[in-house]
Each structure stands twice: as structure tokens, then as C-alpha cells.
């Protein structure tokens, strides 16, 4: 089997057992990138020489019996808003097209110390908002992969990387992962350091990432956060709170049907689903999220925006401008309503292993101009709760659909335990996708 096809866990086991060298794995992934990049455009920067140098160093260490972690010698992608020492970091913006940080973001540094190899920087929408990257969806290159972590999702989906870092302020990890038929995970707010990640909205930004399996998501989390709360073990089958209301009203017919089919399959396997009524405060999520994000984005960009407004593309320019007009009292009021929403959602989920809803409003939109709606993910960025998408099936036109599971705060490994159970029962193919162009 070509090494690019391996999951992170498989590659890790083979490196540990001597059946695969980091050098061979890196070569295979670089070949895959060479072959597919013209069709997918997932990468801003790949430095093959640096990749091979790091992989060879990991190979030498492995030969001497030094295996630093399950990530030893495993390459990973990095969304281009994470600072990488000596490697260009553009934020998807012409304003930063030649910016080269002199240090790594904490998350990248942690992975490097664990023996992982930086494969390159992946495409992002401009400053992780909505102005699109050139990346295409491997499932159908006429469709968006979603955003803002566009390149990371596409790269993992088609086997260019077993894991890639993303970030989520609205729906920028879970949505593109769902659109590309892979696992996307964001832990509880602030569990993973945001230091060295270019900010969009300080109180909403989450570090997250994509993998092709839930097992790989758990390995990544344990590498990034060694003292993460252990899983408590669940009963044989999970008990999930099923979210209708807002989600049913806003889902396309096809997305809701796909969700019902996935739920039906899991129910047939013994999962318990209980209809959960959303609290009245939940209706305020879109407004509260918009007020907070627009103000914090305006504040983060204010100095540069004042000097170089023309350096910003259309969507983010309008978004920042609108945030500059929000009264301070409205921002504070939004943060006060957020307190109420968080309290109400916490109370709601205590009786379940997790909550469940569709990952996205619909499948990946056709065209590259719009990266899709974050409406089903923004509530979990606003409340800071851990969330994960597991691929659950295909639409009529063979585009992926996902099941979104939402966990209790700081109970990431419990959530991933349920996600692994669902992944096993839903039987969605985990192999890398060869890009398809109709």
C-alpha cells in the first residue's frame, strides 16, 4: 500500500515497528501533492527540501530507537494563519504575502517537539473569514471545500496529509471537514493555545484540525494536550440528545433526510436518541455571534485597516466596517446574552453523552465563490463546547454529509469515544479520495 493512504495511527504504528520510515512516508505524501495539487490547490507553501530534511532526521532517530510520540515522523499540514518559524505565513491576504514569522505558534511547536514534520501551509480564506481561497473540493472539483480551513480539509480528504491544522470562529473546521467527507474536530474553547495563531475574534477563535479517522483525532489531541481529561467510558451504546427546531428549520431537505437516515442507522445499532427542545435564548445565537465577531474582528484589524483598507477583499472589508459601527453597549450586551445561552445549553446537555445535529445546512455549494453557511457550527463556537463531525453518507449527487456531535466542556475524549462508535456503525469509507472533475 502506498504510504499516503495510511491513517495517522497506521503510519505511526508502522514507524514504531520499523515497517515504514518517516522518509518514505514524506516522499509518498510529497508525490501525492505533486500529482493532485494542480486540480485541488490546497497549498500556499510546500518546501520539499525542508520536509525531507526533517523526515530524514526523524528516520535517523527512529533507527536509533528514539520514537518521540505517536506523531514521530508523521507529516502534517498547517493552516496559513498559524505562525511557522522561517516559513511564509500569509493569512490568505496580499497584505501578508511575504510575512515570515520568527517563531512557531505553540501548537506547531508542540507537534514539532513530538517529532512531527511540517509538510507545508494550507490555503485559507482571507484572514479566516469568507473571501474564498482557490481550493477545490476533491469530491467534485466544481464545488467549494468550504472554509475557512479550505486547504486543510481538501488536503486531508485526498490523502496529501493525514492531519492538518485548522481554526474555527464560526464553522471553519467542522463545515469544510463535513463538505470533504472527513473528521473535523474542535476542542473546548482555550483548551489548545491560540498563541501564534493570527486572531480573528479572540473570544470565539478555536484551534482545531482535520483527520480521516476519529482515532487520529484522539491521537492528535493527546499529543497537543497531554493532560487532557481521560475518557470515562460509556455504556455499550451512547445516549444522545437530538437537536431539531432551528436545525430542522434551516437544513435543506436532503441534509435533513441524510441526518435522519444516519440517526436511524445508529438507532438500529442500539443508540438512544431523545428529542431535545432548544432553549428560547438559542434563537439569539446568530445575532449574538455576528455582533461579537464583527466587533472583535474590527478591533483586531483596526490599525492595519485604517492604513490599508484597499488591501482587504470585499467580504472582510464590509464585515470589519460593520463592526466599527457597533456601539460598545451592544457588544457587551451580546456577551451578556452569550452568558445566558451558555448556561441554558449546559443545563440542556447534562443528561446525555452528547448532542447531535447535521454538520451543515447542506452539502458543499457548487462554485468557489461562497464557502457555505456556518449556521450549524457557530452555536458551538459561541458556547465554546467541543464539537466533531463524522462523515455519515452521501447526497444524491455524491457529495458528503456529516453528523455533528457536541460534547460537554473539557470532555473531549468522551465525545471522541461516542464519535468513534458512530464512525464504526456508519461505515463511511476512510480512504483518501482521488479528485473528481465531472
Amino acid at each position, binding site marked *: 500500500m502506498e504510504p499516503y493512504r495510511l491513517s495517522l495511527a497506521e503510519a505511526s504504528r508502522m514507524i514504531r515497528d520499523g515497517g515504514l520510515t518517516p522518509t518514505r512516508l514524506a516522499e509518498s505524501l510529497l508525490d501525492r501533492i505533486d500529482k493532485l495539487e494542480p486540480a485541488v490547490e490546497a497549498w500556499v507553501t510546500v518546501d520539499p527540501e525542508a520536509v525531507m530534511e526533517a523526515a530524514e532526521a526523524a528516520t535517523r532517530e527512529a533507527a536509533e530507537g528514539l520514537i518521540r510520540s505517536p506523531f514521530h515522523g508523521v507529516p502534517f499540514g498547517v493552516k496559513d494563519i498559524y505562525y511557522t518559524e522561517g516559513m511564509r505565513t500569509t493569512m490568505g491576504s496580499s497584505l501578508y504575502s511575504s510575512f515570515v514569522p520568527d517563531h512557531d505558534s505553540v501548537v506547531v511547536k508542540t507537534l514539532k517537539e513530538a517529532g512531527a514534520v511540517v509538510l507545508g501551509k494550507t490555503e485559507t480564506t482571507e484572514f479566516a473569514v469568507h473571501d474564498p481561497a482557490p481550493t477545490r473540493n476533491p469530491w467534485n472539483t466544481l464545488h467549494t471545500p468550504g472554509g475557512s480551513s479550505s486547504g486543510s480539509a481538501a488536503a486531508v480528504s485526498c490523502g496529501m496529509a493525514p492531519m492538518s491544522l485548522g481554526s474555527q470562529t464560526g464553522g471553519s473546521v467542522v463545515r469544510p471537514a463535513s463538505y470533504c467527507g472527513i473528521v473535523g474536530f474542535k476542542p473546548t474553547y482555550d483548551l489548545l493555545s491560540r498563541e501564534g495563531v493570527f486572531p480573528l475574534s479572540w473570544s470565539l477563535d478555536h484551534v482545531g484540525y482535520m483527520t480521516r479517522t476519529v482515532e487520529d483525532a484522539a491521537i492528535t489531541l493527546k499529543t497537543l494536550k497531554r493532560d487532557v481529561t481521560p475518557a470515562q467510558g460509556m455504556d455499550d451504546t451512547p445516549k444522545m440528545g437530538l437537536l431539531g427546531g432551528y436545525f430542522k428549520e434551516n437544513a435543506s431537505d436532503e441534509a435533513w433526510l441524510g441526518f435522519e437516515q444516519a440517526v436511524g442507522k445508529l438507532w438500529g445499532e442500539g443508540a438512544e436518541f431523545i428529542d431535545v427542545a432548544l432553549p428560547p435564548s438559542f434563537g439569539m445565537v446568530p445575532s449574538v455571534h455576528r455582533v461579537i465577531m464583527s466587533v472583535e474582528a474590527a478591533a483586531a484589524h483596526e490599525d492595519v485597516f485604517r492604513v490599508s483598507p484597499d488591501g482587504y477583499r470585499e467580504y472582510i472589508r464590509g464585515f470589519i466596517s460593520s463592526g466599527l459601527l457597533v456601539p460598545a453597549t451592544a457588544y457587551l450586551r451580546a456577551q451578556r446574552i452569550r452568558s445566558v445561552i451558555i448556561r441554558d445549553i449546559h443545563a440542556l446537555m447534562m443528561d446525555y453523552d452528547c448532542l447531535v445535529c447535521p454538520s451543515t445546512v447542506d452539502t458543499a455549494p457548487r462554485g468557489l465563490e461562497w464557502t457555505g453557511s456556518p449556521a450549524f457550527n457557530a452555536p458551538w463556537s459561541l458556547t465554546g463546547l467541543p464539537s466533531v463531525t463524522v462523515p455519515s453518507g452521501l447526497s444524491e449527487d455524491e457529495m458528503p454529509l456529516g453528523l455533528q456531535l457536541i460534547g460537554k466542556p*473539557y470532555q473531549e475524549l468522551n465525545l471522541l469515544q461516542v464519535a468513534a462508535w458512530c464512525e464504526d456503525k456508519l461505515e463511511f469509507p476512510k480512504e483518501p479520495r482521488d479528485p473528481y472533475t465531472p
Partner: protein
Amino acid sequence: MSGDGEREYIHMVKETAKAMWGTKAAEKLGDHIERTAAAVYAVSNYPLEPDVEPVTRMRPGGR
């Protein structure tokens, strides 16, 4: 929540935008300004008890 009050508020914000950036630029930003202004109006009209404090340093679950 919507109605004359919301329309008047959005109109006021749009006029402010024109004063700040000029009519042409403000019109180009119109959709964003309208959506954020509508969100502000909704937030401003949501009833809250005085003791509800804003999220400042967010620690879900109180940790």
C-alpha cells in the same frame, strides 16, 4: 423584534456609514452594515436581568 424600530435603526447606521466613508463606499458595504445593524437591534432588544454579566474570559463549565 422587527418592524419600524429595526428599519429606523438600520437607516440610522447606514447614514452614519455614509458620513464616515462617503455615499459610494457606504453603499458598497450596505449588505454587511444592514446585517450587523439588524443583529445589534435584536441584541439590544433582548430582555436581560441586571445581574447577568458578560462573558469576559470564557471558561466553559466554569473552569
